[in-house]
Structures are given as structure tokens and as C-alpha cells.
């Protein structure tokens, strides 16, 4: 079983999805247990894969679907799935997040999309298959197919919400297709020049034939990066994200918000480091000069837009756009510590975004709104939910010992050593904005102050609320337990950050990245 662990990550959700589609019509209640069970299987496969990667001498494990293995056939024949530290870690995050969301989704799915459990969990499991596949595939064209699998199921999951969600999804379809098509076009140019689609094979041909100066390869690089930037909602291309995630059903936004953008950042790291190679990607000075400035604009604009929102869920969607800026910046400051920060931030941002969206989902279910005006007195009613929610919030701000502190620490270190002061300033600015955002929320959730600043209690905020408004009304356990688990994961990753950073360092060591300024 163990040597097939990579295949098991896909087999469980894929067949789970088929099963959900089959039984979904007759017995809707079976779909949720099937989804949870198949994701538990996938999680086991994921942990087993990471264990094998750590145990292996080369720190990577390959798996060939259909038995086209490398011993009998040359590289590039057949599709290789390769797990190294980077891919295995991100894959584990994907499957873990999906597992928690699957448990959480029982009530929201039954209430928000009644009688659609079958289609919902089918798409949900296919989405996870696609996202986990993106993290492990070693084939550039296969990556495109998996991006589209994840995108198509994502469209369906979002559009299951209100009519507003359908309208928002339409924009997502258009922009998502442009992004994926640009990626496909780039892969075409790569294939033209190198004659292989295997990621390691491409890298070998580039070094062997000295293709770094080739115009076609430069075009390919631009198309691929542009496509990936559109898919990850980098600032000028972010227009599809806030509306799509805001109007999506709770379970959908809890799954997509932590994962989709992060997985696309993984693709960018994979492309720049493994496929095109450090020399090709970063010695081209134009990108390393220009992108950090675009990142600054992205972070500042997204943070400012988040500040302007009057709705928690909408505010969080803009925070995702700002966080994308952090990670893209960590890559393009071109520094060893920036890369550690970027990779670690993918992991920690997925966990803390999950935490926040699970919390928001509970607020939405209890209060029927996530508008700021609907938050009064929530802490007295749901102390555990709000506690979990604010662990996520503190992590976004970057307070120790949450994981957000450590990833931001590495990002800022990277920016400082690379002497990209503008990036550091943008990070600091964004941190300030997030302090304002979350302490404003704390104030609203704890105190009973109305919009005009009028205190409707007896003068001491929450404590002074009348008894009738502070009765204990905690969330259902299927929703509360995933939230508390994700909050504890945020803390655990923060406390044991050194172990994860060690793995990331082992991954980055062979690439010989500059530890000071690379310019």
C-alpha cells in the first residue's frame, strides 16, 4: 500500500466523487459521510507520502500512472507524479484543509443548497483531486488539465449559491479561462523549444542546450507567469475574486479561499525554480526589477480596499488579494529567505484563511448577515467560535506565536536582505491596516455600541448588555470542532515552525539562491 501512497491521494476523492454522483440522487444523506471518509483516506495517503519523502535519500518520490516508469522508458514518456518537500507539504495542506471543510460543510450545505448534496460533494471531491494533483504532477501539460479540473469544479461550486453568485462566477469563468489559456500557450512554446513536457526534462534541456537567451523561451515564460498571475488573483487581475468568494455558499468559500490562490502561487514557485530554473527566471533583470513594485501596488491597494469594506466576509476576500501580494513578493525579491517566507506563508496563510472563513460561516449562519452592524455582542453568545476566529485574525496580523508571525518574519527578512525596502514598507503598511481591521472587529464583537457610537447597554459595553441578549448560543459541534482544530493548527504550526522551515530549507538548498541581494 505504502508505495502507492501518491496514487491513493487521488483514488480516494476521485472514486468518492463518482460514488456521491451515483448515490446522491437516491440517498442524499450518504454524501457527507462518503466525502469525509474519502478525504480521510486521502489525508492518510498524503501523510504517508510526506513520510516517504522524508525517508527517501533524494528527498523526492516519483509515481508513474499506467506503469510508464523511468527505468523502462526515457523521461517524458508517460506522466510522472513527483512529490518533493515543496509539493508534498502543499498537497498535505490542501488535503487537510479539505478534510476539515468537509466535516464543517454538513449543516451549511443542507441549509444553503438544499437537496443538492449529491452534486455538491461530487464537485467538492473533484476540486480536491484537482488541487492536490496540481501540487504533485511532474508534467507541464498535465498541470494545465488539473488547473482546469480545479477551475471548472470551482465554477460549479460557487454558482450553486444565489443568482448573484452566478453573475460573479461568469466573470471568474472569463478571467480564469484567459489565465489558463495563457498558461497553455506558454507550455506550447516550451514544448516547441525543448520537445518534452516533463518538468525535470524541460529543466535538463534548458541547461543542456543553453536556451536561456532563446526568444521563444522568454515568450513562454511571460505567458506562463501571466497566466498564473491571473489565476492567483494578483492585484490588477483580482476583479473576479472578491465577488465570487463573497457570494459563494459558506462551504465553498471555506474550501476555495484558503486553497485556490495558494496553489497557484505554488505553481509559480514550481515554474520559476524547478522548470525554468533560477538562472533563467531571475537573471532576466526586468522581472526582478518590476514585479516587486507591482507587488507593492498590489499590497497597498488590496489592504486599502479591505479597509473600506463594511462586511467581514468581503473584507476577508480583499485580505486574500493582499496576501497573494505578500507571497508573489517573497518570490520576486529573489532571496533565499524570501523563498522560505513565501513557501511557509502558503502553508500558514491557508490555515489562517481557513480559520477566518470557518468563523465567518458560523456568524453568517447565526446572524443571517456578515455585515459589521450584525456583529454586536457575538462574543458573549459564542465565545469559542469567536476565540477561534480571532486566533486566525491575530495570525493574519502576525502576532506571535501564531504561524502568521513566523512566515511574515521570513518575508520581511528576505525583503531586507535583498534590499527591497519598498516591499518591506508595503508589508509593514499592510500589517498596520490589518491591526486596524481586526481590532475594529474586536471592538464591534465585544461591545454593544451602535453605528453612531451610542451605547445601548448600561454604559460598559458588552458586560452591560441586558441578560436577554447575552445568552450562550454556541455553534453546532460539526462546525465548531473544525474551526477550533484549524485554530489549534495555526498555533501548532507557529510553535513548531522550525521543523517545517527545516524541510523547506532542505528543498531550497540545491537551488543556490542568493542570501543577500541578488541584483
Amino acid at each position: 500500500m505504502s508505495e502507492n501512497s501518491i496514487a491513493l491521494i487521488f483514488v480516494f476523492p476521485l472514486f468518492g466523487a463518482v460514488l456521491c454522483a451515483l448515490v446522491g440522487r437516491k440517498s442524499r444523506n450518504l454524501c457527507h459521510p462518503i466525502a469525509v471518509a474519502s478525504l480521510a483516506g486521502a489525508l492518510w495517503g498524503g501523510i504517508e507520502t510526506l513520510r516517504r519523502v522524508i525517508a527517501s535519500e533524494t528527498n523526492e518520490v516519483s509515481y508513474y500512472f499506467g506503469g510508464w516508469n523511468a527505468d523502462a522508458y526515457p523521461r517524458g514518456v508517460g506522466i510522472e507524479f513527483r512529490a518533493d518537500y515543496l509539493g508534498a507539504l502543499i498537497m498535505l495542506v490542501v488535503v487537510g484543509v479539505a478534510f476539515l471543510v468537509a466535516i464543517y460543510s454538513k449543516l451549511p450545505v443542507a441549509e444553503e443548497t438544499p437537496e443538492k448534496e449529491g452534486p455538491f460533494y461530487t464537485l467538492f471531491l473533484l476540486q480536491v483531486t484537482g488541487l492536490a494533483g496540481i501540487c504533485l504532477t511532474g508534467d507541464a501539460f498535465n498541470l494545465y488539465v488539473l488547473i482546469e479540473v480545479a477551475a471548472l469544479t470551482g465554477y460549479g461550486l460557487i454558482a450553486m449559491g444565489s443568482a448573484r453568485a452566478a453573475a460573479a462566477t461568469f466573470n471568474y469563468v472569463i478571467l480564469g479561462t484567459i489565465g489558463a489559456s495563457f498558461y497553455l500557450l506558454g507550455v506550447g512554446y516550451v514544448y516547441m523549444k525543448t520537445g518534452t513536457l516533463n518538468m525535470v526534462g524541460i529543466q535538463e534541456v534548458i541547461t543542456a542546450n543553453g536556451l536561456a537567451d532563446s526568444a521563444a523561451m522568454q515568450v513562454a515564460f511571460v505567458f506562463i507567469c501571466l497566466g498564473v498571475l491571473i489565476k492567483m488573483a494578483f492585484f490588477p487581475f483580482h476583479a473576479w475574486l472578491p465577488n465570487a468568494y463573497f457570494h459563494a455558499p459558506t462551504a465553498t468559500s471555506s474550501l476555495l479561499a484558503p486553497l485556490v490562490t495558494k496553489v497557484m502561487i505554488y505553481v509559480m514557485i514550481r515554474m520559476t525554480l524547478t522548470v525554468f530554473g533560477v538562472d533563467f527566471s531571475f537573471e532576466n533583470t526586468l522581472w526582478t526589477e518590476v514585479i516587486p513594485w507591482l507587488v507593492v501596488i498590489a499590497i497597498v491597494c488590496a489592504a486599502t480596499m479591505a479597509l473600506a469594506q463594511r462586511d467581514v466576509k468581503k473584507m476577508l476576500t480583499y485580505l486574500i488579494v493582499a496576501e497573494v501580494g505578500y507571497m508573489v513578493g517573497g518570490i520576486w525579491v529573489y532571496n533565499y529567505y524570501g523563498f522560505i517566507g513565501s513557501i511557509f506563508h502558503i502553508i500558514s496563510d491557508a490555515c489562517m484563511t481557513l480559520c477566518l472563513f470557518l468563523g465567518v460561516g458560523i456568524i453568517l449562519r447565526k446572524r443571517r448577515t456578515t455585515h459589521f452592524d450584525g456583529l454586536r455582542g457575538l462574543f458573549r453568545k459564542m465565545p469559542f467560535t469567536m476565540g477561534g476566529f480571532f486566533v486566525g485574525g491575530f495570525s493574519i496580523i502576525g502576532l506571535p506565536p501564531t504561524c502568521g508571525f513566523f512566515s511574515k518574519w521570513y518575508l520581511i527578512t528576505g525583503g531586507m536582505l535583498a534590499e527591497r525596502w519598498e516591499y518591506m514598507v508595503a508589508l509593514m503598511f499592510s500589517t498596520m491596516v490589518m491591526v486596524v481591521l481586526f481590532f475594529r472587529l474586536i471592538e464591534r464583537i465585544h461591545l454593544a455600541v451602535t453605528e453612531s457610537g451610542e451605547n445601548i447597554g448600561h454604559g460598559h459595553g458588552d458586560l452591560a448588555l441586558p441578560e436577554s441578549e447575552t445568552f450562550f448560543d454556541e455553534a453546532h459541534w460539526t462546525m465548531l470542532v473544525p474551526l477550533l482544530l484549524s485554530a489549534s493548527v495555526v498555533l501548532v504550526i507557529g510553535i513548531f515552525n522550525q521543523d517545517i522551515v527545516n524541510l523547506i530549507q532542505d528543498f531550497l538548498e540545491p537551488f543556490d539562491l542568493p542570501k543577500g541581494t541578488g541584483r
Partner: protein
Amino acid sequence: MFGEDGLLNELLVERFNYCVYVVLLLIGLYAMIAKNNLIKKLIGMSIFQTAIILFYVSIGVKEGGTIPIYVAEHDPHGHHAEHQAHPEEANATEETEENATTATTLHEEDHGHHGPRSLTDEETSDYANPLPHVLMLTAIVVGVATLGVALALTQRIYRAYGTIEEDAVLAAILAEDASTVIPDVLATKPKRTSSKSRKAKKA
């Protein structure tokens, strides 16, 4: 410019497919971004995807090329006669030169071996590379699926807003937003009338 090696000659004769693909790509992109009608946007999306398919298919084209199936009797060079005893050799596709040589050497050493064998460069010189075309089969499937999802969404938007003009949909959405009242949560349950009345008194 118009000569044998001129730019125009290169663009219109040698690289004609690539020029067409760029033009189609831009038409599709323009329609997706600038058109107001949702169906026209989707037509643009289809043109955009078709342009990429044309690009890939152009990569794989070879003048006088044939499908990569081993056909001994149609052999134009007569090189294959010696291998006729091994029809399963047809399995192999183009490989790197090194692999091809090793495989041929192995083959010559062991004539009883019936496994797949790499053909030499000379043997495969007439074959068109099938891979780009096969990749495009997948891309076409993806394109059809995307178009299907997008059409379903358009239908849903039309049912909800009665129009498929983007600005009309946006106007309807703005009107909807303006009329939405944020419920006063402290006044949603009958229990809480006390606070409401207190508020009213203060006001």
C-alpha cells in the same frame, strides 16, 4: 522586405499559421473583454481557445509527414525491410538519438526479442509528431466543458435578471444592493424587544 528572405515573405508564407493564430487570439481576447453581451463574450472565449488549438496543431505539422504508424510496404526508403519480422516495433515513437541507438544495438544483438524498440531517426523522418495533436484533444474537451458551464451560468443569469447584457445585469445588481436592508440583529427575535424600545426611548 518582399524578397525571398524578406519579413513579409516569412510572415505570410512560412509563418502564416502563427500569424492567423495571433490574430484569432486577439479577436477572442477583445470580444471577451470589450463585448457587453454575455453570449458574445462566450463566442470570444471559443475563438480564443480555438486560436491556441491552431497554434499547437501548427507545431506538429510536417510537410509530407505521415501518421506515426509503422507501415513496411509503404516504406519510401526501403530501410524497414530488415525489421519486417517485428511488427510490434510500430509501438515506438520518436526518442532521443541516444536511446534510439542503444535500442537498435540491443535489437541487433537479440533477434528473438519481440518487445517495443525505438526506431532510428531515419525511420521516423516521415512521421509527424502526434503529441501536440493529442494534447489538443484534451484541450478541446476542456474547452467544451468550460463553454458548457458558462452557458449554464448565462441561462441562470437570464432567469434571475431577465437580460444577458452585462451593464443591465450590473444595474440590476446595484439596485438590489441599494434596496438591501441590514437586519438589526438585536431586534430579530421577540425576546429582544426590550432593547429596541430602550433604543427608541433614547432616540
